């Protein structure tokens, strides 16, 4: 019979474990996947005759080596946080938003228009510019959401189509109606006004205040998902459409809403990258954040805190990649390969376990064979 003091201590420990254990379990998979992906990447690097250690060191150096690099990495993190949140939120409604890229770009274009063509004092102009991005992105996501809710069109296909439609539409706008009137005739838009620009917060890097907005957005999405009826309904629809409907929730409306919010987040990312970094839209601008966002969201467990961390990770990879190519001679596209591997390992966690299991089986078989040989040898 345990004393009451012992049982109090035990129950305290048990309670701590109950809280930490799921957190740990949630972390093991993404961290394990990243490590495995880096290991496989290292094999690639070895195969081409380079040293993985110097390569990865060059990567870290490229991403965090000095204030400039740190700022650049963080600046890269901002759009990934926002597009990652977009994918994550849609995933909660069981919707696969592959259209983050299109929504991001449309948001960027809208923000460019408002920033370059309107004239207001900064405290109005800047929010308006960002709002334009949110609304445009939300609208673009909403198209896919509407088609899904009313006509059952699978969002994977519609968002992929909308990505291309966005790209061509933007190409038309940037080389036509929105093209900058100048003697140089470059296919780009006019520059965004000073009053619509985000402040730089870490000179000499290009890091803008956008990162703060992104973090606030992450907190907001977290609150929305877990503390509000909006999040409850979206999650219910994603986990069981029919039970949600039974409980009075309108699943089609919630799917539409999820796509609008998702698109709005991505659009905000686009607005920030214009307002805080590029200040104008150039023809052919297609940074691919919307696609990396899929990996970001998966690794982040489709949850805002995880998304923030995963965004930082992928920004590190892409920022460090150029350093890796220049310093260690490893082609930078290897980070895309690593990114793909991370997605594979997160999506199919059994792969991570399969290798040790297979090795274990081989070991057992070898042991059995050895024992068998011994027996026969003994009988001879």
């Amino acid at each position, binding site marked *: 019979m345990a004393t009451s003091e012992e049982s109090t201590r035990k129950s305290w420990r048990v309670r701590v474990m109950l809280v930490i254990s799921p957190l740990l379990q949630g972390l093991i998979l993404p961290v394990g996947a990243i490590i495995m992906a880096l290991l496989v990447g290292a094999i690639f690097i070895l195969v081409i005759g380079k040293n993985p250690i110097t390569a990865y060191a060059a990567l870290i150096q490229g991403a965090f080596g000095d204030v400039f690099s740190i700022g650049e990495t963080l600046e890269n993190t901002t759009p990934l946080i926002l597009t990652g949140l977009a994918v994550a939120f849609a995933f909660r409604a069981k919707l696969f938003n592959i259209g983050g890229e299109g929504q991001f770009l449309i948001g960027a274009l809208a923000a460019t228009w408002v920033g370059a063509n309107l004239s207001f004092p900064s405290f109005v102009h800047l929010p308006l510019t960002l709002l334009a991005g949110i609304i445009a992105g939300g609208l673009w996501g909403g198209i896919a959401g509407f088609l899904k809710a009313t006509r059952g069109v699978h969002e994977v296909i519609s968002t992929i189509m909308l990505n291309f439609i966005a790209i061509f539409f933007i190409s038309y706008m940037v080389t036509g109606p929105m093209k900058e009137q100048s003697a140089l005739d470059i296919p780009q838009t006019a520059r965004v006004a000073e009053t619509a620009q985000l402040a730089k917060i870490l000179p000499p890097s290009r890091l803008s205040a956008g990162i703060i907005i992104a973090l606030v957005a992450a907190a907001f999405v977290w609150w929305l998902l877990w503390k509000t009826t909006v999040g409850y309904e979206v999650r219910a629809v994603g986990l069981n459409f029919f039970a949600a409907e*039974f409980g009075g929730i309108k699943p089609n409306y919630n799917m539409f809403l999820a796509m609008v919010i998702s698109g709005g987040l991505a659009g905000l990312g686009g607005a920030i990258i214009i307002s805080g970094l590029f200040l104008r839209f150039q023809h052919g601008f297609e940074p691919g954040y919307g696609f990396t966002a899929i990996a970001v969201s998966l690794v982040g467990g489709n949850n805002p805190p995880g998304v923030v961390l995963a965004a930082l990770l992928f920004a590190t990879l892409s920022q460090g990649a150029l350093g890796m190519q220049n310093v260690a001679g490893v082609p930078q596209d290897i980070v895309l390969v690593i990114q793909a591997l991370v997605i594979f390992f997160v999506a199919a966690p059994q792969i991570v376990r399969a290798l040790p299991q297979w090795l274990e089986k081989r070991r057992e078989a070898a042991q059995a064979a050895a024992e068998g040989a011994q027996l026969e040898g003994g009988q001879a």
Partner: protein
Amino acid sequence: MTEKVPVIEMRDVTKVFPGVIANDHINLAVYEGEVLGLLGENGAGKSVLMSILYGLYQPTEGQIFVRGQSVAITEPGIAIEQGIGMVHQHFMLVPVFTVAENIVLGSEPRTGAGTLDMAKAVEEIKSLSEKYNLEVDPRAKIEDISVGMAQRVEILKTMYRGARVLILDEPTAVLTPQEIRGLFKIMRTLTEQGVPVIFISHKLKELMEICDRVTVIRRGKMIGTIGIEEASPEKLASMMVGRDVVLEVEKGLAQPKEVVLDVKNLHAVDHSGLPVLNGVSFQVHAGEIVGIAGVAGNGQSELIEVITGLHKAKSGAVHLNGDHITNHSAKEIIHKGIATIPEDRHHRGLVLDFSIADNGVLGSHDRPPFAHWIRRMFAAIRSYADKFIQEFDVRTPNQEVLVKNLSGGNQQKVIIAREIGREPDLLIAAQPTRGVDVGAIEFIHKRIIEQRDAGKAVLLISNELDEVMGLSDRILVMFHGEIVGELLAEEATEDELGLYMAGAKRNTPPAEGG
């Protein structure tokens, strides 16, 4: 007298899944010319055992003998080779393929060039069809044929592959009493032709009628095999459950008052435009239980969905306490006072990956006290969950447990607690005890009667005639989307209800056109 060699023998068969022993050293033997019943509750392990015999699972321990020879059945292909044929509870038919394509799949007749010879297939099917009296249309698509024909297709599938023993897994769930007799006739023909039948069921009366011997399984263990002469429904029930079971529901007289639910001439169509409700009219009073009997698929599910706002009515009216609620939203109807225990708790009733607490407020989650505007009020949610967990005896360590980790009975309790907790004027209970163990069944029946006695209106819909007859005060029978029969429960007999259920009798006026 010489020892007969069993056609199939399973010796000491054991199957262990993570966390559960589904089959524990079971011994089973089937002899030529007999119908062997396999009896057990839901989850007792009957389907697992037969799946092992059919090669869908591998036994952890134990052996299988076919006509005395030990055989390792590692996949269905081998079972088929050994002459074992299985008709599953849920049909294994490809909806967009034809009857012929389904029957020959995997053993297709070929032309000299190696292409599909469907003409030959149709010919062979026709001759088998005649031999065993199993009428089918080879060129029809499965999605277009009746349930009865689909079952015949399944049996033909086994005959086509030369089955010499047939396993039928719960074949009668989807049939009227008359169709069941037809199936029994087919089973007798088969045994006379030398094909023994293993008949899996939890329906005591059917087992008594058709089987020669019955093997009883409880919680993975074999309890015993009993010849039909020594058996009775009570004996079988007590073997199945392990204690004496009261097969009757105890309830007092009903005291019906005002009309709560009024359904008039309801018409509805399904997603392909086919009519499913053809002018349904009935009323439910406060303080009574109205039971709707009928074979599954005659519009009962759609009726519930129309009343609760999940499916559109084409015409007709539904009134609750005098308020018009036809085609209103599900949310409105919930808040107006209708609560439903849905027939499929995993499909409609619960979000399996939500906690008990979150499931407990589904439907009331967006109103005070559980929410203020869009903010959720967790203190109120948690105390409510604590209360109903205690009151309904839901077995769980705490309220954060995800509902998918609860047993079927406890899951059902969560749903019932939630629905009754809303204090509705009308409680709809659809298949309320499906897949629930006997102890919980008694509990659920008690709570339903309690609601009636508290003055609520209760609409019960169940495929189990015993349940409908035991619980209801008035019984309605649905057939082809209409109410064809209305009887007082104390006057109704199973045979008479069977006639109504098969559309062979009616005592209500034909409905007006839709």
